[in-house]
């Protein structure tokens, strides 16, 4: 039993905080409140400092295959409300390719991701509750695959070189990397102004080599991708809720009413303490899930538990933070509001708490 971070992990956290706190000042974040929310300078800085290789094998230029390291990156991005949406690129694409693709693809794609090239995924579909069973269809014709379907909530697709698409075919599930210029993109306007896209594929033809995995391993790869995405999103949620909780503690320790600091009222401090408890639970279930995913490609129940806690923590802590800040909490000149929007995004994308509870219950009762 050892809950301590290794020294290199603490270093990752510290240096990320240094870079991110400089780059995510209120002034800079304001710039992205209405614009395309993607900080190119910050991305290249993360690349130069090796942070895009977290969780990737050294032989591709990464810093080692530990998903906990990658979790730290997402946690800190969440904590600083960084204008970067990277779970599609660094979790979905990079990790799934590392685990399921051949050496050649790994060499090519992973090293370019580390260098700052953007890839993304498009997994979720409107009106499909079960991402493991995509509606998007792939027809295999000789050496070609023809894909038709609609995906949504694909991150930063407009600047991605290629998009990893999940499909169903007569060979089962296939994960296929499609060049972005072959699809139709529509930007969606969502609650936290994150760059999310609808991706339409109308008989898009790609080579068979664009399937990223061995024959017959598509479903396994897709399940891994979905689980990893849940866990990494839960790390973003951890950063977001950690920041909100520290804002609560800071604000209520200074704000005075009735001649005393409001944090000295038990009604206030106890609500803050409940946020701390929620946060601690989320941190632990995330750690367990990411560590287990390191050695086991299928940890669905652990991933579900982590996303369930993330969904609940995002909801509860966000509203506690808004409430305990009073009007300040909703004032756009103060920092909290951005986190509240991000919290709702983390809560809902790739499975809400209720949806995942349902899924977990299904697994438990069928002994999975």
């Amino acid at each position, binding site marked *: *039993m050892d809950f301590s971070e290794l020294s290199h992990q603490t270093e990752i956290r510290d240096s990320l905080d240094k870079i991110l706190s400089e780059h995510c000042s209120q002034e800079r974040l304001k710039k992205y409140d209405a614009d395309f929310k993607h900080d190119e300078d910050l991305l290249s800085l993360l690349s130069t400092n090796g942070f895009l290789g977290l969780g990737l094998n050294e032989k591709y230029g990464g810093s080692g295959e530990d998903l906990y390291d990658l979790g730290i990156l997402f946690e800190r991005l969440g904590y600083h409300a960084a204008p970067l949406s990277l779970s599609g690129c660094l979790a979905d694409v990079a990790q799934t390719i590392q685990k399921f693709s051949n050496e050649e693809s790994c060499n090519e794609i992973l090293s370019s991701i580390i260098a700052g090239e953007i890839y993304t995924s498009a997994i979720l579909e409107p009106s499909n509750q079960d991402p493991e069973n995509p509606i998007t269809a792939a027809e295999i014709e000789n050496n070609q695959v023809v894909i038709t379907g609609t995906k949504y909530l694909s991150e930063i697709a407009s600047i991605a070189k290629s998009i990893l698409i999940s499909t169903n075919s007569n060979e089962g599930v296939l994960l296929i990397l499609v060049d972005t210029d072959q699809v139709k993109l529509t930007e969606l306007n969502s609650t936290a102004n994150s760059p999310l896209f609808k991706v339409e594929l109308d008989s898009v033809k790609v080579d068979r080599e664009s399937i990223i995995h061995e024959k017959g391993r598509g479903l396994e790869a897709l399940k891994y991708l979905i689980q990893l995405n849940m866990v990494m999103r839960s790390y973003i949620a951890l950063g977001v809720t950690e920041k909100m909780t520290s804002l*609560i*503690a800071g604000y209520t320790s200074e704000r005075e009413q009735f001649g005393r600091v409001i*944090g000295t*009222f038990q009604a206030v401090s106890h609500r803050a303490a409940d946020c701390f408890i929620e946060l601690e639970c989320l941190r*632990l279930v995330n750690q367990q899930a990411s*560590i287990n995913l390191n050695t086991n490609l299928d940890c669905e129940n652990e991933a579900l538990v982590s996303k369930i806690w993330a969904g609940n923590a995002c909801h509860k802590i966000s509203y506690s933070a808004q409430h305990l800040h009073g009007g300040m909490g909703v004032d756009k000149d103060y920092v909290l509001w951005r986190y509240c929007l991000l919290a709702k995004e983390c809560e809902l994308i790739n499975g809400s708490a209720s949806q995942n509870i349902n899924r977990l*219950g299904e697994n438990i*009762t069928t002994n999975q």
Partner: protein
Amino acid sequence: MLIQLNQKQVKLQNELQEYFESLITPALRTELNQPEHFEGGGPEFKKAMKTMGSDGWIGLSWKKEFGGKELSPIEQYIFVETVMRTGFPFPFLTTESVGPMIAEHGSEWAKEEIATKILKGELIFGIGYSEPNSGTDLASLQTKAIKQSDGYLINGQKMWTSLANFSDYIWLATRTDFEAKNHKGISMFIVPTDDPGFSMSAINTLGDVRTNATFYDNIHVPETHLVGELNQGWSLITSQLNLERLALVNHGPVEELYKDVLETAQSTKINNDQYLSDLSWVKHNLAQVHSGIEALKLICWKQTWIMESGQLNMAEASVAKVYGSEFFIEAYRLMMEIIGELSILKNDSELKILNARLERMYRTASILTFGGGTNEVQRDIIAMAGLLMPRTR
């Protein structure tokens, strides 16, 4: 980071499990199912304690020099977990809290006469801390021990002295300095329950667990019955508190119950082609309990790891206490919903389910949110130590 038990710990777990399976005979099980023996104290219980003593399973947390096994906090946690899963009312407070303190801080008499017998499984202690007017604010306690030429004269009253009805001694917190600030004037004594000045009246609780009000009327004890330095008792009261709180919220029993409820739901037919576990709300409740247990297990494991590495983290110990105690109440409710009306049938009733454990557990669950340091105080600690907020008033 490594979040699992190592081989040695798994081995200990298996060893303990086998041991308790053989220790708990049908006769002992029958005895423990009677309300007056829920907490032990019967002849079969006493026999089992002596067996454990001679087999070396008492004193696991004690230092080796006092005849203990000096297990690490995580190993102690595993011990508590495994014992609690079996349902044996192991007297942890006597063996793991009072025992090692007497072995370390007691007089020569106490070490030889008391500590040794605790190790052998021959003695049980009741804990005399709370008083009618000193509960959460324990340091305000008023039971007096007045110095005399040949010892101390004790007078006062204690509340919630559990196990006193079959204890040999009371581990008694008294005030010995009336001038000093609250927690600075407290001393600990070993008080025999066969003294004519000792008496009690039973308090019967909602959970059918008996506890007692105990009275101390001019009880004279020799100097040898003082444990630790005079007026230094507070640190003895608080030194083991974190481990004790952790034992209260051990994830073992609730996980054991969850497994049994799951199995019951999977094997209970509700019509010709459906089982209870096929219902969506049943799955929902099971998943809620499952994800709650996962967090509890991790919180507890982390806490043992913190203790093992010698760090002190007050906020996290309080997180464990608050989360665990409030989760139990929620978990029992969710599981009782699954079993439905049958879960209100008592242990001696026809049609009872799972030995009516849910029926009993829900009645005892409320004790934990206020016992062992009430959750309001724990939340105060979390806000102060975890969030660095100002002290509440």
